[in-house]
């Protein structure tokens, strides 16, 4: 008998949630009709993003926050994203190791995902996975991602509250804070506070936050939280900061604004992705792209008029002004 994936997801079936996530990862056509049908049931989960360099303790913190949320009888979905090797295409997904105490808890669903070298599509499948968990009834969804590169900034657009994890002894923090963290962090976590240099790091980050909020007019000033995730210290402060940010977003109307921006961006990105997919597929199917490359090599064509030709051929409407 065929499984009704939509109905099963709405009942929170882990089997159905897991399978649709696989379809999303594989860009399998079966994902689309499911996503369309579960979409009206999304928007209820609160989405938390946790980012930082490898080894800073993101998974341990995720485990701690999950524990705190479970104590409040809230259900939790986790998506932990780790990089794929660009050479072998494989990936070692080790985030579960830190979360074993939840592995037999039906109130927690945890999924590891590899980046697979997506062309700007990482955010797309993370978003999809979040929606599946949301429709499956999870109160909170936590996204764990490595680093604060472009992809990760993308992923953080999926989150309602974004937390940046820093640890002492990982080089020049101020430098990395220039690279865009100031714009994305709603909360800073200084983890491994048991390590030397923690106080200094805390002061540095606090200084930057104060400086920044005096330059720009910010209605939310990111708090700096000290934690020792392995000992569970500071977890409650962390959750309190998350809750405070959520309250701030809800009361200021910023949550709606954030979600509206997200839908705007997501819709454009999905159109982009689908148009590109269709055109690439057609161009590769009859080797036309190879012919074009050949002619560009021979200077008969150039990439500029090739683009125009392709657009004229498949999107003639865009030229009707």
């Amino acid at each position, binding site marked *: 008998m065929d499984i009704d994936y939509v109905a099963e997801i709405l009942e929170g079936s*882990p*089997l159905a*949630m*897991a*399978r649709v*996530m*696989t379809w999303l*990862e*594989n*860009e*399998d*056509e079966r994902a689309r009709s499911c996503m369309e049908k579960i979409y009206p049931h999304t928007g209820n989960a609160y989405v938390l993003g946790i980012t930082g360099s490898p080894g800073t303790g993101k998974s341990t913190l995720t485990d701690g926050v999950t524990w705190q949320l479970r104590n409040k009888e809230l259900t939790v979905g986790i998506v932990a994203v780790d990089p*794929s*090797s660009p050479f*072998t*295409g*494989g*990936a*070692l*997904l*080790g985030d*579960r*190791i830190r979360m*074993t105490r939840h*592995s*037999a808890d039906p109130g927690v*669903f*945890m*999924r*590891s995902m*590899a980046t*697979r070298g997506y062309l700007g599509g990482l955010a797309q499948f993370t978003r999809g996975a979040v929606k599946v968990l949301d429709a499956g009834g999870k109160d909170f969804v936590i996204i764990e991602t490595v680093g604060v590169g472009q992809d990760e900034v993308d992923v953080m657009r999926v989150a309602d509250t974004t937390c940046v994890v820093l640890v002492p002894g990982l080089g020049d923090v101020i430098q990395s804070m220039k690279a865009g963290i100031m714009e994305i962090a709603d909360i800073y976590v200084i983890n491994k506070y048991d390590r030397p240099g923690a106080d200094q790091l805390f002061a540095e980050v606090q200084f930057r936050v104060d400086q920044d909020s005096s330059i720009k007019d910010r209605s939310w000033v990111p708090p700096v939280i000290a934690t020792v995730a392995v000992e569970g210290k500071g977890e409650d402060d962390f959750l309190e900061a998350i809750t405070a940010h959520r309250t701030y977003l809800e009361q200021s109307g910023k949550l709606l604004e954030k979600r509206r921006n997200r839908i705007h961006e997501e819709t454009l990105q999905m159109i982009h992705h689908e148009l590109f997919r269709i055109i690439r597929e057609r161009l590769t199917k009859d080797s036309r792209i190879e012919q074009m490359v050949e002619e560009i090599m021979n200077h008969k064509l150039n990439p500029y008029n090739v683009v125009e030709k392709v657009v004229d051929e498949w999107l003639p409407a865009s030229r009707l002004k």
Partner: protein
Amino acid sequence: MAEKKIKIIVAKPGLDGHDRGAKLLSRIFAEAGMEVVYTGLRQTPEMIVEAALQEDADVVGLSSLSGVHNYFFPKVVELLKAKKLGNVLVVGGGIIPLEDIPTLKKLGIAEIFGPGTSTDTIVGFIKANVKSK
């Protein structure tokens, strides 16, 4: 559709602390292009099967060097079937006496790989026997 990847759970059931083999294999599987979820030590069969379910794994690899395979390996297979995951390929390795292997295979473990098995053999077996979903 994007390229499919083999997703494999590598787990150490029971209290066995020998994790060199499991860690080595996790690296080998990743190098062979698979997506590997290493669950760490001290896993109950329930935890392993829950991981396989949530991760939508194609393969579960069990490693045991402490003589607990006769209980744990079939238990994992049984729980997988109970969760409608009978399609998941289960393989095992570690210190497993030869005379135990026929029974384990009869109970649904696809293959057992002992010390000294070339990792090419293991990877080759998994690639040849994994089922599509």
